[in-house]
């Protein structure tokens, strides 16, 4: 099929790999979703949506049914998997561990990469071979785009520009690849800036502006026939980022992400893939409320900074131990150091300073083993485990002094954690496949859950303090799914459950006084004996006519703790239905997003119910050939009916943007 347009998406369960990519042999499970960022060569995929270089990372993440996003404004939404977020999931960049520096969750790791940097995004739901460490919820990994050796053209690339009417968003981006037989270099850059957006109906959402630039460099050198040296560096700088759902805005944030890895890859060998990487990243994050009229946020001028540093290394190998057996092993070490502080400037009084993350540090050494057996061409079994040793500590005297304000015991601790997982899939016929997963998960408490000092949570209006004696959150989870696939029809149904033990949540500390002006009280993280999370997911598509298809993604999740409280941050029933039309060089889609009201909420977690809504989106795109080059143009109308709405996960019920005309032009050469 001819190339039609950019903006295509694969939801692949075992995508084909190019020779240099990591083999997906051991994770053909329905667990692993991969969204591939479209490039010049991409063909028309299973679904045609927004996984292109001009999209934002959250738009791409939205294409994965299990991923939901928590919005705090128009920037850096935080991804979660089936209602599990923050420390419950691992978010990594090309296998590198990286931890946000902001104590208010303003900087999920996903905010430091752009589709322009990426090859794909993979999601492993629950503990599994691609969950990137000990976890209960799973892992999201952003794969960095690598330059291609020996490409058709010595120089190739793209440049593009975009404009969005609602917030006056402008975007400029480019990418250039230099390729020779043994050496290749890829350089990319992006600048994006937005003013305040308007919600449906026209209400301006103040403090929703932002600007950022992002640049990446990747180099690949072929050392020998089957070995390669790769180096990657990404710099991401955000400035003047408003967070209308919070009481503070980001003055600036700076992330530097670098890695070097050595890759051996020879499909004829028993040890056919071996990758060893050394990496480091650094985030400097500063937020303040100096632009806010203080009367509106019931506060005083304050500045909060956060610095998060991580460095580490891993080595990962795939070994064929027979015709039907592939063994995978991975060993990793990393260390994250996190410092966060707050300075308040009262009128006519001395400035007030405290550490909010009192120089906390975590050092981790872990190992993964997993095995994949193709029992027959119909039956596949994989299983494995992950074990790790964590050491958590406060590294400075001032940090220990600060922590004494909330905890009098010894703060340092060590934990031994493990995950176990098994998957089996069975092809009943050419059209029917059954899949079963079961896993045992365990996660370390985050440094914030252990050592956080009076961190204000806008969702429930409480100051949160850590609890260095927390137990590790544990889970057993399982899912079962059935898939039917014919030439013009596809449907997959999945049901899943998580049973938690020692679920971590904040509980009110009676009599404790908060530090943040306006806070209702103090909550401390503690373990809730049990909690459950159940849900189901239905995906389907049908070709109505040669050029016209319909697809639907429907998800429902229900969570409750052992005390009968509805779990927080659980999206209600959601249905995304898309009609898409591809004709010659044109591509169109009309999409409806419908979310039910969420009444299953608990004041224990500070949540309020949220109303139902439905919005419509429309996009038309066309690709033009200009000699050997291609020009891609698209016009999208988001929220066509200018509906005023917010999702259940949106912090502080800040409404989403109203109608927005989005134009993108990309030139590929």
């Amino acid at each position, binding site marked *: 099929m001819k190339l039609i347009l950019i903006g295509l998406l694969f939801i692949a369960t075992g995508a084909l790999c190019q020779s240099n990519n990591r083999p997906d042999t051991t994770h053909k499970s329905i667990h692993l979703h991969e969204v591939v960022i479209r490039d010049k060569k991409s063909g028309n995929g299973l679904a045609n949506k927004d996984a292109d270089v001009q999209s934002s990372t959250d738009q791409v993440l939205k294409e994965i049914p299990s991923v939901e996003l928590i919005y705090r404004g128009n920037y850096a939404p935080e991804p979660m998997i089936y209602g599990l977020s923050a420390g419950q999931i691992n978010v990594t960049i090309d296998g590198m561990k990286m931890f946000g520096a902001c104590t208010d969750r303003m900087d999920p790791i996903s905010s430091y990469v752009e589709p322009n940097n990426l090859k794909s995004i993979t999601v492993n739901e629950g503990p599994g071979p691609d969950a990137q460490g000990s976890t209960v919820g799973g892992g999201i990994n952003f794969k960095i785009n690598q330059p291609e050796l020996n490409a058709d053209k010595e120089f190739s690339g793209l440049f593009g520009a975009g404009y969005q009417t609602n917030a006056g968003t402008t975007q400029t981006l480019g990418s250039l690849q230099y390729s020779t037989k043994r050496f290749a270099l890829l350089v990319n850059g992006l600048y994006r800036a937005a003013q305040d957006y308007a919600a449906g109906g026209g209400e301006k959402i103040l403090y929703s502006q932002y600007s950022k630039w992002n640049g990446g460099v990747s180099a690949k050198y072929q050392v020998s026939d089957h070995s390669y040296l790769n180096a990657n560096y990404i710099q991401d700088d955000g400035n003047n980022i408003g967070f209308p759902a919070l009481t503070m805005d980001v003055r600036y944030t700076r992330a530097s992400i670098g890695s070097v890895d050595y890759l051996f890859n020879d499909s004829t060998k028993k040890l056919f893939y071996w990758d060893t990487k050394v990496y480091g990243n650094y985030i400097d994050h500063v937020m303040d409320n100096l632009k806010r009229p203080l009367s509106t946020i019931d506060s*005083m001028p304050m500045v909060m900074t956060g610095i998060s540093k991580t460095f580490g290394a891993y080595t990962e190998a795939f070994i064929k131990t027979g015709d039907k057996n592939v063994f995978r092993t991975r060993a990793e070490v990393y260390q994250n150091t996190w410092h966060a502080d*707050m300075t*308040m400037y*009262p*009128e*006519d*009084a*001395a*400035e*007030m*300073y*405290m*550490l909010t993350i009192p120089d906390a540090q975590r050092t981790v050494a872990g190992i993964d083993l997993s095995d994949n057996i193709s029992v027959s061409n119909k039956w596949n079994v994989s299983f494995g485990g992950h074990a790790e040793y964590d050491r958590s500590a406060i590294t400075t005297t*001032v940090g*220990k*002094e*600060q*922590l*004494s*304000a*909330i905890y*009098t015991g010894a703060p340092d601790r060590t934990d031994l954690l493990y995950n176990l997982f098994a998957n089996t899939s069975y092809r009943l016929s050419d059209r029917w496949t059954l899949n079963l997963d079961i896993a045992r998960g365990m996660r370390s408490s985050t440094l914030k859950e252990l050592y956080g*000092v*009076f961190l204000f949570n806008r969702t429930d209006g409480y100051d949160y303090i850590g609890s260095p004696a927390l137990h590790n959150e544990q889970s057993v989870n399982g899912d079962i799914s059935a898939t039917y696939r014919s030439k013009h029809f596809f449907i997959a149904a999945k049901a899943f459950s998580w049973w938690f033990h020692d679920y971590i949540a904040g509980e009110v*500390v009676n*009599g*404790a*006084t*908060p*530090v943040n*002006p306006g806070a209702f009280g*103090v909550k401390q993280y503690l373990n809730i004996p049990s909690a459950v999370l159940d849900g189901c997911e239905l995906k389907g598509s049908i070709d109505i006519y040669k050029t016209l298809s319909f697809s639907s993604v429907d998800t429902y999740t229900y969570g409750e703790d052992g005390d009968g409280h509805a779990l927080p941050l659980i999206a209600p029933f959601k249905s995304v239905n898309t009609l898409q039309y591809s004709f010659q060089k044109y591509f169109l889609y009309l999409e409806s997003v419908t979310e039910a009201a969420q009444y299953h909420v608990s004041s224990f977690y500070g949540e309020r119910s949220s109303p139902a809504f439905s919005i419509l989106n429309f996009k038309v795109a066309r690709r033009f050939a200009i000699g050997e080059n291609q020009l891609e143009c698209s016009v999208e109308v988001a929220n066509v009916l200018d509906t005023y709405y917010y999702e259940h996960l949106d912090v502080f019920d800040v409404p989403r943007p109203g109608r927005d005309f989005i134009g993108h032009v990309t030139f590929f050469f």
Partner: protein
Amino acid sequence: MKKLLYAGVAILLISACSKNNVNPNGANVTGKIKVGESYATGSGVKVTLYQGAAFLTGYNKIYLVITDSASAAVVTNATIAISTSMGMGAGMAAMTCPVEQPVYSSTNELYTGASVFNMATGGGMGQWMISVNVTNPANGKKGTASFMVNVNNSTYNLITTQTGSDGQTYMITLVQPLKPQVGMNTLELLVDEQNMDMTYSPVNNFQVQFTPEMPAMQNMTSSNNQNPVLSANGHYVGKVNLTMTGDWKLDIDLLNGQTTIVTDADIEFTF
């Protein structure tokens, strides 16, 4: 450098300040500042007075080295009584302040006591006089050495004086933390009452309750504080949780059994 330091200190000091900074035999005065030396005439000993830091209004440790006038040997078991006074001008009674009698320690061969200066010197006021009455154990003879000292105003209100519900005048002094840290600090308060003769005596039979507050934060308080309980000689020891730097106020109540004697006495400091 060290000379410069001494020179600087000397400006603050009184006329009795000696240029001779040689440590007396045996006594360890490292880190302490010499205020002066004086013979306790008639007793055959010399008294050298040291301070930990320049005197400020509030609780101040004072250190004494007693040496034999003839042999210069450290005298270890002298009987010492100190008193303080500040002349208030002609016709006015001199004022005094609470003192803690020096106790000898063999580790540093110093006699360590304390004085709670409740008024600064200068600005038309006189100086504080510290009188050291020594009985020489070798000959049983008594003598008094006197030192005129300067006291600067502390930046903070580390002393609070209130008339109690029983009509008595009480003085509460912050002993520590004088260099507060963020987080949990040992809180030590000294409670004195004023006697008929205007001297002070430690109060040992009260219960102390307190709340730390930040006035700039609508009197935000903190958790896990421990009310000070009596250790000895009017000193009450507990814990204060200072969650952040800034202006702090300790709101103190004194109780005698069920009876509230002093309420809302404030000690204020900033760090």
